[in-house]
C-alpha cells in the first residue's frame, strides 16, 4: 500500500542523486564559455550580421536609416540567423555501463550521464531543444526538460547490453549516441541507417574504462558480464589479451566507418581522462556537423 509518506520518501531517495548530477553537469557546462551560437548566415536573430544595399522588395521599415544617411545608397541591416536545432541524445544506461575498474574512477554510466546532461545544458543555453531518446518525449527547452533528462539518465536499464531505440527523430536534426558500444552492432547500424535516412547527423561517443583497453588479466579466470547473463571461462587470461584487443580495435574501426559513411563523427572517451575535453569534442561535433 502506498501512503503519501512512503511515496515521498521513495521519491526523495530517488531524487537524491539528482542534485549532484545536475551540479556536476552544470559545472562541466560552465567550463565552456560561450554565448548563443549563430548560424553564420543572415536570418532571424538578435545579433547584427551585415549591412547590405536595399533591393527591390525590401520593406521600407527594414532600411537602416542611420547607415543609409552616411551614404547615398540605402542599406538594410541584416541579423544573423539564430535557428533552434533539436538534438536527440541516446545514452546507454545498461548494466555494462555501470562499471568502474577503480574506486577513484567514475562509472562509465556516470560519466556518460554527466557528459550528456552537460551537453544538454550547453545546448539549451544556446537555445537548442534537447530530448533524451529513452524518454520518448519530443525535444524541448527549459529547466523542466533538463530535470526530466536528468531523471531519465539516472533510470537504469536492466539489460546487460543496450540496443539503441530511437523514436521521433526529427528530420535534419542532430543526434548523439553515448555508449560503450559493447552490445550488438547491428542494432546501432540499423538506427544509424534510420537516422541517415532522415538526414540526421551527429556524433558517436564510445565511453570505455581504462581496464577495458588494457586487459591486464592473467591466470585462470571466469569473466562475467555485469548483469551476469554472459560468462566466459579461460585458463590463461593472459593469452587472450592480444585477441581481445584486436577485437576491440576491430569494433572501433567498424563504428568509425559507420560514422564516416553517415557523415557522423566518432570518438572514444576513457573515464580516466577529463570530461571537459570530451564535452568540447561533443559540442564541436554537433556544431561542425552543420
Amino acid at each position, binding site marked *: 500500500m502506498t501512503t503519501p509518506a512512503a511515496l515521498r520518501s521513495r521519491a526523495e531517495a530517488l531524487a537524491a542523486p539528482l542534485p549532484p548530477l545536475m551540479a556536476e553537469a552544470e559545472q562541466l557546462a560552465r567550463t565552456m564559455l560561450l554565448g548563443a551560437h549563430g548560424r553564420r548566415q543572415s536570418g532571424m536573430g538578435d545579433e547584427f550580421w551585415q549591412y547590405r544595399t536595399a533591393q527591390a522588395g525590401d520593406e521600407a521599415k527594414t532600411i537602416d536609416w542611420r547607415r543609409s544617411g552616411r551614404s547615398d545608397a540605402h542599406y538594410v541591416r541584416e541579423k544573423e540567423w539564430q535557428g533552434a536545432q533539436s538534438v536527440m541524445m541516446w545514452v546507454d544506461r545498461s548494466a555494462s555501463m555501470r562499471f568502474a575498474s577503480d574506486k577513484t574512477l567514475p562509472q562509465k554510466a556516470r560519466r556518460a550521464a554527466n557528459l550528456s546532461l552537460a551537453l544538454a545544458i550547453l545546448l539549451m543555453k544556446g537555445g537548442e531543444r534537447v530530448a533524451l531518446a529513452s524518454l520518448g518525449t519530443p525535444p524541448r527547452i527549459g529547466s523542466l526538460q533538463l530535470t526530466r533528462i536528468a531523471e531519465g539518465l539516472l533510470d537504469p536499464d536492466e539489460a546487460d547490453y543496450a540496443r539503441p531505440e530511437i523514436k521521433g527523430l526529427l528530420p535534419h536534426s542532430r543526434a548523439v549516441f553515448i555508449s560503450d558500444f559493447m552490445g550488438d552492432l547491428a542494432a546501432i547500424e540499423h538506427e544509424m541507417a534510420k537516422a541517415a535516412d532522415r538526414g540526421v547527423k551527429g556524433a558517436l561517443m564510445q565511453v570505455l574504462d581504462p581496464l577495458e583497453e588494457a586487459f591486464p*588479466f592473467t591466470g585462470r579466470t571466469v569473466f562475467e558480464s555485469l548483469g551476469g547473463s554472459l560468462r566466459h571461462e579461460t585458463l590463461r587470461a593472459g593469452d587472450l589479451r592480444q585477441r*581481445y584487443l584486436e577485437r576491440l580495435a576491430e569494433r572501433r574501426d567498424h563504428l568509425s566507418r559507420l560514422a564516416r559513411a553517415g557523415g557522423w563523427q566518432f570518438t572514444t572517451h576513457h573515464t580516466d581522462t577529463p570530461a571537459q575535453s570530451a564535452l568540447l569534442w561533443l559540442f564541436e561535433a554537433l556544431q561542425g556537423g552543420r
Partner: protein
Amino acid sequence: MVVFGLLGFTAPWLLLGLLGLPLLWVVLRAVPPAPLRRRFPGVVLLLGLTDRDSESDRTPWWLLLLRMLAIGALIIGFAGPILNPQPRTGGSGPLLVLLDGTWADAPDWEARMSRVDAALDEADLDGRVVAVALTTDLPAGGPQFLAPSDWRLRLAGLAPAAFEPSREEVDDWVAALSGAFDTFWLSDGVAREARAPLLAALGARGTVRVFETGRRLSALRPARVSEGRLEVPVVRLRAGEAQSVTVLAKGPDPAGIERDLAAGEVTFEVGSAEALLQLELPAELRNRITRFEVQGARSAAAVTLADDSLKRREVGLVTAREGREGLELLSQYHYLRAAFEGTADLVEGPLEDVVAAHPDVLVLADIAQLSGAERDEITDWVSAGGTLLRFAGAQLAASDVSRDSEDSLMPVRLRAGGRSVGGAMSWGEPKQLAPFASASPFFGLPVPVDVSINAQVLAQPDPDLPQRTIAALSDGTPLVTRKALGEGQVVLFHVTASAEWSSLPLSGLFVQMLERLTVTSASGTPDAAVFEGRMFTPDQVLDAQGRLRDAGAMAAVAGEDLLAGASRAVPPGLYAGLERRVAMNVFDAERSLGAADWPASVPVEGLQARVERSLMPPLLLLALALMACDALASLALTGRLRGLRALVAILGIMILVPSAPLHAQDSAAADAFALEATQDVVFAHVITGDARVDEVALAGMRGLGVTLYQRTSVEPAEAMSVDLETDELSFFPMLYWPISTAQPLPSPAAYAKLNRYLRGGGMIVFDTRDGGIAGLAGTSPEALKLREIAAPLDIPALETIPQDHVLTRAFYLLQRFPGRFDSLDVWVEAAPAGATQVEGMPFRNLNDNVTPVVIGGNDWAGAWAMTAAGLPLLPVGRGYAGEQQRELAARFGVNLVMYVLTGNYKSDQVHVPALLQRIGQ
C-alpha cells in the same frame, strides 16, 4: 616404540597414513586451482575465444609434489619420529639408583636429578621398587627400597658432597648388602679407588647399568710459589683435543669486597691432561688471593684455596739510623737481608715509613731508644698482630732500656752490660745452643754444633722468664725470648744479627729460626711437623659446587687428618691452627684426574655423542613451510598473486604482524588527531585520568564552544581531550587542565612538550576546582597536586589578576571571574615592574605578553559544562543569583578565549582615543 635403525617412532601406526598418499595424488591432480571470478563488461568480446593449450587445468606436478611432501611430513611428524632412540630396558625386582654424589657431579647435578627422575618414572611403569643412594652418603643399613613416588619426593633433598667416598666406608657398606637388585649407576666419570669393589659387589647382586656424561671436567691443584711466580697446576679429565680454561684468582680488594684479582688462561695441549698456569703478581695482590677457581666450572675440585703458604711475608727493616759507614759484612742488615731473601719482601727505611707499610714483621736491629710517638705506633701495630723482632747489640747493652722495669716492647728485663764468654779477656768457652724445648716454636730444628755464642745481653731472672724463653744456651741462659703483646708478639734475640757476637747468623739455623718466627713458608707446603699433634678448627668449608661456606660449629680436626686428604670428616675448606691457616683442597699436588674405567660387561649409556632427539618439531615446521609455499604457489597459479609486491606484502605480514600494523595505526591515529585538531579552532582539556573530572571538563569545553558560537565570531569545532603523553599540543590555542589528585605526574617527555607549548605561545588554564578556599599557597589536596605538577613547568612570576588586566575587558567588562565558585584568587603572569599608568588613562600600559598560565580554583568547566542538548550539566549557586553567576562564568570564558585568540588587541584599543586626538592635532 618401533625402532628402524637410527630412527624410532612413538606412534608408528600413523605411518599407515602414508599409504593414502597415492590416492590423494589422484584426487588432488583432478582438482585444478579455483578460478578467479571477474566482472568485466568486455566479456562480449571474449566469447568464442579458446585457450591455446588446455594443459594446466590439472594441478601441475610440482604443486602436487609440494602438497604430497607437506602431508607426508605431517604424517611422519605426528608419528613421533625420534633420532637415536635410547632403548628402554625393562626389568623387574628392586632397582638401586646409585649416584656418586661427589664434587664431579655438582656442575650438572640438575641434569642428573632429571635423569634419576626419568629412571624413577621408568621403574614406576615397570612396577619396581627403587632405592636412591649417594656413594658419598651411603645409607646406613643398606639401600632402602621404596615406591618410586616416595623417592621422587626425596630427590630434592639430595645434594652432592665436596669430598669423595673413602674405600673403608664403601667396603663397610658393601659388606652389609643383602638381597638381589639391579643397579643403575650415575657415575661422575672420575676414576677412584672405591669404585672397583663397589662395582664387583653390585654386579654380584644383579645387573649393573652405568650412565655417564662425556663432559669435560677440570680441576686445580694447590697453587704454589716458584721463583716468585704463582703457579697453578690444572688437570683435566680426558686428555683429548686442545682446550683452554680460564683460571680466576679471587680475593678481597682493599675495601674487603671479593673480586677477581687476576685471571689467566691456560691451554691444555693435545693429548695432555695437565697444564700449568703461571701468574706474576705484586706481593700485595698475591697476599690477598684467597682462592683460585676455573671460570664457569661449578665444582669443588675447580677451586683451590690459598692459605698462608702463598703469602710472602713483608718484613720491615728499620735502617734509617744506620748513620755510620761500615763494612758491608759487619752490618747487621746484611745477614737479615740474606736470611729473608727469597722468602719475604723487604721494606727498608726510616721507622715511620716502615710501620706505615704495615709489614708482617718489623725488625729492629740494635735499636734501643724509641721516641714516645714511635713507641705508641709500634705498640699499636704489634697489638694488631705484628711481630716485632729485636736484636741486641752494643747500643742495647749500653742503654737503660728495660733495665729496671720491663719495657713494653721488650720481652724481658735486661741486666746492665751483658756478658762476654770465651773471649781473650774472659774465662770459659763460647757457649753452645741447647736443644729446643717442645713448647718452643723452634722445636724440631736441628741444632748445629758449630754455632757458638761469644757475647749476649742477659735477661733478669724474673718469674716469667722460663715461659718467655724459646731458645737457650747450653747453660740455660736465655738466647731468644718472646712475649705476647695484644695479638702480636715481641721477640728478642739476645745476640746481634751480625756475626759479631755469635756465629748464629752464619748458620742455616738462623734462617730457619727466622722462618719459624715469621711463619714464613714461601718454600711451599708446610712440612708435616707443623700438623703433628695440633688441632685445626674449620673456618670455612667448600661445598660441592665450589662455594665457600662458613663452617659454623664444626668440630676441630687433628693435624694428621688434614694430611690424609679430604673426606667426610675433613671436608675441603680452610682450617685455622694456632699460627696459621691451612687450606684443605680437593686435589693435592700429586693427584691426577683419571677417567673411570668400566669393564666391557657393564653397559655404559650416555657416553656416546648420539643424543636422543625428537624429529617431530622440525617435521611439523617443514610441513607448515611447505603449506605456506603451496598457498603462495596456488595464488600464483590462479593469477591472484601479481608480482613481487604481493609476495613482499605477504612476507611482510608474516614477519611483521606484531609491529607494522601497530606502527601504521599509530601514525594514522596521530594524523587523524592532527586533522581533527586543526580543521578549526579547537579547545581541549587535559586528560586527568579521573573519569568524572574529564567528562565535566570536556562538557565545559563544549559549553564554552556553544557560548562562543552564539555570541561571538569565534566558531570552534568540537572540543577534544588531550593525552599529554601521546598527543601533540601545539594545535590548541588553550588547554584547560583540571587538577585531579588521581592524576599521575607527566613523564619528562610530556613536561618537555608542555614547556615547549608554553614557550611557543600556548596557554594553560589550571583549575584546582576547590573554590580557591586555601588560595594558591594553600594546602588543599588539589593545590598541593598543582604545585607538584607545575614544579617542572616553565612558569613566570604570578600575581592575582589586577583590576586593569586585559582579561577584564577582552570582550565583556568583568571584575570577577567566577565559575561554579566565585573566588577572586585567580592568578596570571605578573605585570612587568615598569608598567606605569598614563595620566588620564584608566589602564596601565600593559600591551606586552600574553600570560602563559591562568591559575584558579573556580571550577570554570563545571559552570560552562553543557549536555549535548545544550542544557547546563551542573547546578551553579541557587536560583537567580546562581544563573547570574553562570552567565558571568560564561562571560569570563568568552573573555578568556578572546584574550587567547587576540592577545593584547584590547589593550591597544584603549589607546585609540589618544591616538585619534594626536592625529587630529
